[in-house]
Every structure is written in structure tokens, then in C-alpha cells.
């Protein structure tokens, strides 16, 4: 054992990174008291899906390797094993340690296994080299994603800024599908401790029900399938939420969602199941109105859930240019040129390509059933209505 290496990390007050964050002093306690380390396991949390610190396996490979070696030597670990997600195939090939792909089966971990997140090991290496600890995060908005690495204590706002993004109003979610919605005040708090590795910006139109639905579908797909609650619970949650966002929810679904999410979170053995319902459990309480609106009222107040909205052509703006009709793959657009276009809602697949193609911005989403254009073939200019959005 190399006590000086350990002492340095402890003096720096380092924490284990990830969903099971806790001071290293606490995590190392049994090993410092004499339990031998059989294996150092380097792994992401099972709940992780963004792997923001992926550069540790490429650009910062030397740093990560020195962190692994430092801990291995410090605890005289017999072996090292690296677990990587499938999508990081080959990234640890040159490390000289056995690599396994997929989720960590926590049931296979023994008393002698010391498990560390790659970011923790990198920070141990940084501290050994006299540097301060850092934190990777991915900032995302719409289709854009940017990974930044800042000093550990950096605020949420700091990460957003470093990624070259900004948000005036709307919603910020930290931790992605398994995270939480932040209050404006939390933007000036350090990201570390609030959530993991992903900050998602929704300047307009954030629907917590739809977001929770995506998260539960993801969890159901990612579940290793060993635990009943994680496997079947997330499947059922995703079905209930799917019904909610497609207008098929029923009154009893809300208590089911409460019961299921509580059970999945409490009974799962790894972070995937435990964290998979974190967002839902908070949102069911803080955003209960939104769940009510979807399930009872059959509406999405943020116009995110497509089942409750249709694309429609504003009859007062359309110039009958035919551009929308030429991009529509579903063949759902009628009339033109010269006539005001109309969208057949039964054919429409709500892909939005027409709206993007329209030079007049005459196509937008309206609540199902709302009329903003003519009901029969009408020449351009012959339709008048107020252009007020509902």
C-alpha cells in the first residue's frame, strides 16, 4: 500500500463521481481498514447513457491510465478490469487491462472489488499531479450537443456558457432522462452534486410527461432484465406514459405511475433501475398538473405531444406555392398551386417537413380540431381569419 497517494486524494476531499457519489474517505474505509482489494473495477454507472467523459479514453488517456495505476498501486489491487458501454467499443484496447462490454452485473461484484468511475480516477491522477479536480458535462439543446470539461466546482450556468449556449427562459434539465428540472436559482449552483454529466436546454416547449416517457422507454430498453421491477416496471411505466402522451390515458394510470415508480426506484439493485424513475417521481409531484392535463384533459399545454396537435395551413398566409406539397412524403397535402393548401390530418404523419419548407411560415401546429384554413378548395386570397394562435 502507498499511504501517501491515498492521503493526497483524501486531503483533496475527493468524492466518488456518479450516481453513488460519496466521499472517497467513506468509500475506501473498509479497504483502509485492511480488506484486500482483489480487483479495481473501472466502470460507468449503469444508469449513464451520455458518457460525457469519453475523452478520458482518447485525448486524456494518459491521465486516466495514471489514475488507474495510482489506485491499483495504492491498494495493491490484484487486477484491474474495465467495463465499457457497447458504444465505446475498442476505446480501452491499448490500456493493457481486460475490457468487458455492457452493464456491470452488480451481483457479480464481490467484497474485494473496488469500483471507480473513470472521472474519479482522472481526478485522483490530477490531484497526484498537483492539479485541481475537473468535471465533464454534455450540454445539449435541440439536436446540438457539446462536451465541456471545467473545474469541479463550476456552476450549471458556467457549463452552459462554456458550451457556447445560453437560455433566457424555458426549462433546464440536469442529468438527462434520469435527472431533474432545475429552478432558475440552481443555475448558479455547482453542477456537481445536482446531477450527472448532461445539461439539457429547452428554451420553449418542455413537456415533462413526454420527457418522462422517453426516459422510461430508454430504461426499459437498457434494463439488463434480471430484476422484475426494473424490467417489467419500466415496461409498464413506459406503456402508461405512452398512453398519456397519445391521449389514451385513464384516470387509474396516475396512481399506477406513483406505485410503479416508487417500487422500481426502491427495489432495483443497480443505478439503472434506481435512477430510471428519479425524474418521473419528482415530476409526478411538481408537475402533477401536466400529468393531469395529458391523462384526464387529453391535451399537452406545451404543444410537444404530437397526438394532441395537428399541422395546419393558415389560410390567410398560404400563397399556394406548392413547396409544402412537394416535400410531403405522406401525400397528405391537397390543392395548389393557386389554391390554399390543406392538410389531410388522417394522412399526415406529423413529420413537420412542410412547416420547415413553407416560405410564408403559414404551416404550424394547432390543437387538434382547430380550424385556421378553409375546409374546401379555396383560391389564394379568398380566406380570411384572425392569425391569432390558439
Amino acid at each position, binding site marked *: 500500500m502507498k499511504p501517501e497517494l491515498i492521503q493526497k486524494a483524501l486531503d483533496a476531499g475527493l468524492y466518488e463521481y456518479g450516481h453513488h457519489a460519496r466521499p472517497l474517505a467513506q468509500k475506501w474505509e473498509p479497504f483502509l481498514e485492511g480488506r484486500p482489494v482483489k480487483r479495481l473495477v473501472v466502470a460507468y454507472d449503469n444508469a449513464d447513457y451520455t458518457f460525457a467523459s469519453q475523452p478520458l479514453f482518447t485525448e486524456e488517456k494518459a491521465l486516466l491510465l495514471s489514475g488507474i495505476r495510482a489506485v491499483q498501486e495504492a491498494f495493491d489491487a490484484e487486477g484491474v478490469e474495465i467495463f465499457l458501454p457497447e458504444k465505446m467499443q475498442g476505446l480501452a484496447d491499448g490500456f493493457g487491462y481486460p475490457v468487458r462490454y455492457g452493464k456491470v452485473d452488480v*451481483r457479480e461484484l464481490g467484497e474485494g472489488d473496488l469500483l471507480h468511475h473513470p472521472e474519479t480516477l482522472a481526478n485522483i491522477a490530477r490531484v497526484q499531479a498537483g492539479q485541481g479536480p475537473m468535471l465533464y458535462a454534455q450540454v445539449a439543446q435541440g439536436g446540438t450537443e457539446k462536451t465541456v470539461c471545467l473545474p469541479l466546482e463550476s456552476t450549471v450556468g458556467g457549463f452552459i456558457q462554456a458550451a457556447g449556449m445560453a437560455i433566457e427562459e424555458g426549462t433546464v434539465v440536469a442529468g438527462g432522462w434520469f435527472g431533474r428540472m432545475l429552478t432558475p436559482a440552481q443555475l448558479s449552483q455547482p453542477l456537481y452534486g445536482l446531477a450527472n454529466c448532461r445539461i439539457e436546454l429547452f428554451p420553449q416547449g418542455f413537456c415533462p410527461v413526454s420527457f418522462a416517457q422517453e426516459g422510461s422507454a430508454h430504461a*426499459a*430498453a437498457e*434494463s*439488463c*432484465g*434480471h*430484476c*422484475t*421491477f426494473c*424490467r*417489467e*416496471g419500466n*415496461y*409498464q411505466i413506459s*406503456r*402508461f406514459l405512452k398512453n398519456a402522451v397519445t391521449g389514451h390515458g385513464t384516470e*387509474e394510470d396516475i396512481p*399506477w405511475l406513483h*406505485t*410503479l415508480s416508487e*417500487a422500481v426506484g*426502491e*427495489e432495483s*439493485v443497480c443505478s439503472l433501475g434506481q435512477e430510471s424513475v428519479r425524474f418521473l417521481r419528482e415530476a409526478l409531484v411538481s408537475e402533477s398538473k401536466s400529468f393531469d392535463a395529458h391523462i384526464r384533459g387529453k391535451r399537452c399545454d406545451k404543444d410537444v405531444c404530437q397526438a394532441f396537435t395537428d399541422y395546419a395551413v393558415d389560410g390567410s398566409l398560404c400563397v399556394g406555392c406548392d413547396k409544402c406539397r412537394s416535400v410531403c412524403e405522406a401525400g397528405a397535402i391537397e390543392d395548389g398551386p393557386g389554391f390554399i393548401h390543406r392538410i389531410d390530418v388522417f394522412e399526415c404523419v406529423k413529420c413537420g417537413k412542410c412547416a420547415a419548407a413553407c416560405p410564408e411560415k403559414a404551416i404550424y401546429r394547432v390543437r387538434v380540431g382547430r380550424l385556421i384554413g378553409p375546409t374546401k378548395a379555396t383560391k389564394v386570397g379568398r380566406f380570411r381569419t384572425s392569425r391569432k394562435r390558439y
Partner: protein
Amino acid sequence: MKPVTFKLDGVTVTAKEGQSVLSAALDAGHYIPHLCHHPDLPDAGACGLCLVEVEGKIVSSCTLPVREGMEVRSKGGKVEARRELALKLLLAAHPEDCSTCPKYGKCELQTLMQYMGVSPEGLERRLKPIAYNDQNPLIIHDMMRCVLCGRCVRACHKVRGVGAIDYKKKDGETFISPVGQLLMDSDCRFCGACVQVCPTGSLMDKEEVGDQGFSAPCKTTCPAGTNVPEYIRLIKEGRYEDASCLIHERLPLPRSLGHICFHPCEEACRRHCLNEAVSIRNLKLAALERDPEKVWKPKRKQLPDTGKRVAVVGAGPCGLSAAYYLRKQGHSVKVFERQPQPGGMLRYGIPEYRMPRDVVADEIGDLLEVGIDVQYNSSVGDYKKLAAEYDAVVIAIGNQQGARLPIPGSDKPGAYVNLDFLRQTAEGNPPALGDNVLVLGGGNVAFDCSRTAVRLGAKNVQMACLENESNLPGDQEELEAAREEGIAIHFGKSFLEIVGEGDTITGVKTVDVKSMEFVDGKLNLETVPDSEAVIPCDTVIFATGQRAEMSPEMGLALGRGNSIVVDGDGRTGLENVFAGGDVTYGTQSVVKAVASGRSVAESVDRFLGGDGDTSEKLIDLDTASPRIGKEPGFGALPRVKNGVVPAEVRRTGFMRAEKSFTCEEACKEAGRCLQCQLREQLHPPKTWTDFEEGGAAK
């Protein structure tokens, strides 16, 4: 290890240190519903049924170690509600209809459903899109019914160390499947552990297992109940003497049987579903040939003398077996044998090239040395007289009378009968044969006759039988050996007449068989019209069955084929007269005869006041390791063939035609065993009613 006590629902439970709360509770007879837990597997805490509440938290009790003084609740509002939720979730992804499931009534999931009164109402039901798969040998995979308890995977990985099956995920659906495409290419050892521990109808045996539970079919099929799988294991481990001891526990004359047994164990061997059965008979012989000191002998049981006297008639396999066990039970035994030497069919029937006479003499010597008096050259005609002189009589005279078919010409001097022909040959006085011998019959005795005729110098030996090749009563090995020795076989022939002027034979007139079946033991034969033909020959040997030499004047009730009618204990109509072997059930096999002899000995022992327990322990058997490990290509390992003497050499005399296994061959062949017996170590599914009746500890 010091005991730990804790409270379960207010009741004090004592547990072993390191035990889980669940297993401690079950041991103490307190049922906590559970599904993925199995007493012989490491626990996984996966199914969510064995939930208990401890210190305000709801946790799986199977992975919760007992702690002194802990208070555990398995009942009550929240814990039960959550357990019910787990079952609801499982049921929502399980087919609704139990009545069409082969596991109906024996399914642990069904039992849980009944016990907890839960249905998945309110949840979305789905059927897992996993097709029924019967492409694998022995095991059916119906994973639509799987609840992913993972027992099979743990059994395969943790208990067996094989790892042929595992969790897989496709299109969002988790399922368990062979790691390769099929079990054969996943290095499966086909031990059946996965099937044994499956709580539902997901993993099923292709051949249904009875209510008695699974036991290795080689062992259960052996008439003598020889512990086949374990002696194969001992041979694999090179422990030939131990194997010999184990074999002798159940089988007298085992080495003789190693040469000639018709091995029903091999027909039952589950490996035949993969490729070929294990060569069990040759393995047995290999072990017995490597026990020169006969280490089993000193451990033989011998009860003190009872003063009772038993007469055994017939020194064949059945009579010798009966005499041997009766003597060991302490009775004084006298055997009456018509021939000058003991052995019956082993000596006077089965030809020497199959059954070496020194082996027979040696093994019979082992039996007789326990103190059996044999009176040779002595025919018994009056059983009543014998019954009056002895406390009990056992008739084991076998079937000694060959049958001539009732067809014209059957009494010509050149037409012989199987048993006479074989006996005279064995005595060194074979009857004169012509150049062209035709043996009528297709059983093993017919092969013995024809192969003997070849060895006696007949130039052209043929066989003709009623059956066609696919339902030939004789062994396949015999057919192959006979063909190699140049014997031609006419299948599907019925015999009409032995033709020839006066005493001469020029051929046998036959007619082709269209179909044949036995109805209530009677042959129904349909022949092809206008298909009469003559097979030319100058000598005929009838090998069409044999019967007992009994007559009604002997005072015993007789049944079909002159057999003696006995009850299940081998009792005849006379109070102290018993019978066993072929004379009671018709011509069958040596192994059945020795088993029958032993069973009659037990009946007689009980009749004479003994306990009828002839069992003996010749080896303190260690427990087989459940961890069989991985062996690439195991499923395809071919059966090891023992060497044979080339046909052109063995034709010329009565030297042994086959060779025994070498050590290397024996080890290799023993390694092909599926070790089905290991499955018996694993508990079959248990339901909550088992706990109510007797408690888990029972």
C-alpha cells in the same frame, strides 16, 4: 458457528450465521413467498417476491443476511402490496392460460398466484414474442412462459460451471437462450439442471418426467437397478476398483454381463438423443477387468446362520443369484443342477466367442464360495417332494426346450433345434452340419446359432426371419457382426415347409410377410400372395423361441409357454415353493434373471422370517461434484468403439470376437456421460403447500 436469533413477524427464529433471512425462515417452516430463490442455487434477489420489511426498508429476504436481534416483517400492508406488485408485473408478461401449460399443477408461479390471489388487472398484458423451440435435443424451450427468475442461468453457470445459456436481449425483450444458436453449439452438457430448477413451463424435458421426479434412466431401466451413472463417473476418475464395488452392490455375475448383457440401459441413455448412447456395457467390463484383487469381496454381507434350508433348482443366472443372496441372508442353500457344470445359458447356451468360459467359471466361483452346495447331474422331477424336505424351494430352471415350428419336414434329421445345437457345441460334440445352413429366426439366439455354424465350418450360412430389418428382435451389433462373418439374412419370411426327398433337406419353402403384429401375445400374420419361394439349404436350425420344460403333472399352475404362474413375490401355488427367472415370464435376459433371482431370494427370506433386505454396502461412495465444467464440442463426442477381431480370423474358431476397452478408451467413453444423476441432487419445485404439511426443514 453460533446460532443467530431474529424476529420474523413477531416470532423468534433461530438461524445459522451467514444464512439469509429467507432460507432461515423456510428452514424454520415459515413460508415467505419466493420465486427466484432455489435451495441449491446462489441467491440473486431478482424476482422481488421474497420482500420483507426491515428497519423501515423493503428488501429481498433471500439476499438479506440474518443479524442478531433484527426484526423482520414479511406480512402487512406495504410489504405485501409491493410483493403483490412484483407478482402482478410478472403475470402481466406471462401467458394467461394455465390449463394448456404442461406444467399445470406443478408450476411455482401458478402456486404463487393461487396463494397470493393476485391478477395483473390494470397492467398492460403482453406475450413475449419468443417462439416455442424444440430444435434442441432433450430440452424444450418455451420462453414465452419464462419469468426470468434466472434459476436456469445460475444452475448452468454457478452450479455446473458450464455457461451454455445466458440472458440475451433483442428488440427490448430480455430472454434466456443458448449462448450460441442451439444448445449443441453452446457446449451444453445436457445435464438437465436448468430444467430441474425451472419453476414454470419454460424449460421442459422432451420426455415427460413422472410424479416421482427425475432419476437417471440408465439406472432405473436396469432390471437389477445398477448404479450406472455413478460407476461411469468412477471409471472416468480411473477408480476401477471402486466402480467394481459399486457394481457388485447390485449385480451378481457382472463381468459375465459385461460381455453379453442386452444393455437396456444403453437404449434408455439420454445421450442417444444427441448422437449415440454411452457404451455402458463395455465400460462396466472395463472396470471389472481392472479389479484383480476383487476388493469388493471382503466387504460382502453375511448374516448369521438361520438354520433354515432352501433348495434351489437350476444353477443358471437366476438360480445362482437366488442361492447367493439366500446364503448371505444366513440360510443353508442346496442347488440342484441337471448339467455337470453350473452357469445355465451362460455356459450351455451363449457361445464361447461371446461369453468366455473362464469368466463364467471365475464369477460363479465367487458366488459359490459363500457356502453354497451344488448337486450336479441331478434332475428334479417332483417339486412336492422337495418342498417337503426343505423349508423353501426356488425353481429357476429357465427355458430349456427349443421349439420346432409345426411345419412339414420339421422332424427331419438335418433339422436341429437352437438350444440342443448350442449345448452340444458347448459340450464339444457339435452335430454334423452340411455346407448350407439356414437358421430360422431373428433373435440373439438365432445369431448365436448362425455364427456358431460359421465357426463349425459351414461354408454358407444364412438366416431367415419374420421381421424386417427395422424391427429385428436381435441386437444391432449382432446383425453387423453376423454380416461381417458372411451371413446373409432374409427378412420378412414366413416358413411353410422343409423340402427334400425322404430324410434329406434341399431347402425351406418360404412366403413373404406383408405385415405382422402381436395382439395379446398372439401373432397376426399377413402374407403376400404368390410369393412362395425356396431357400436352398441342407441343414436347418430352428431358433424360433424356447419354452420351459414343465408339465401339469408337476403340481404347479402353468401359464403361457409352460411358464410357472407366480405372484408378485415369486410364490407359486404351493406354500413354500417359489419360482423366478425365465421359467416364470418367458425367455428374456440374463440381467433380468439375476434380478429376478435376487428378488425371489428376498421373498423367500421374508417367508423364512428374515427382513428380506439383501442390500449391501461395498463402497462408501463420495458425492459426485455438481460442477462438471465446460467442455468444447461435448455434444458431438462420438461413441468410442471397442476393438473387434477381424471377421476372417474370428470365423475360424471360438476365440473372443470383441476386445475390451483400454484404460484410455474407457476414460474417453466415460467422459461422454451426461451425468443425469447429478440432477437428482437438485430439489424439484416446491410449493407453499409443502411448507404447510411438513415444514421446509423436513
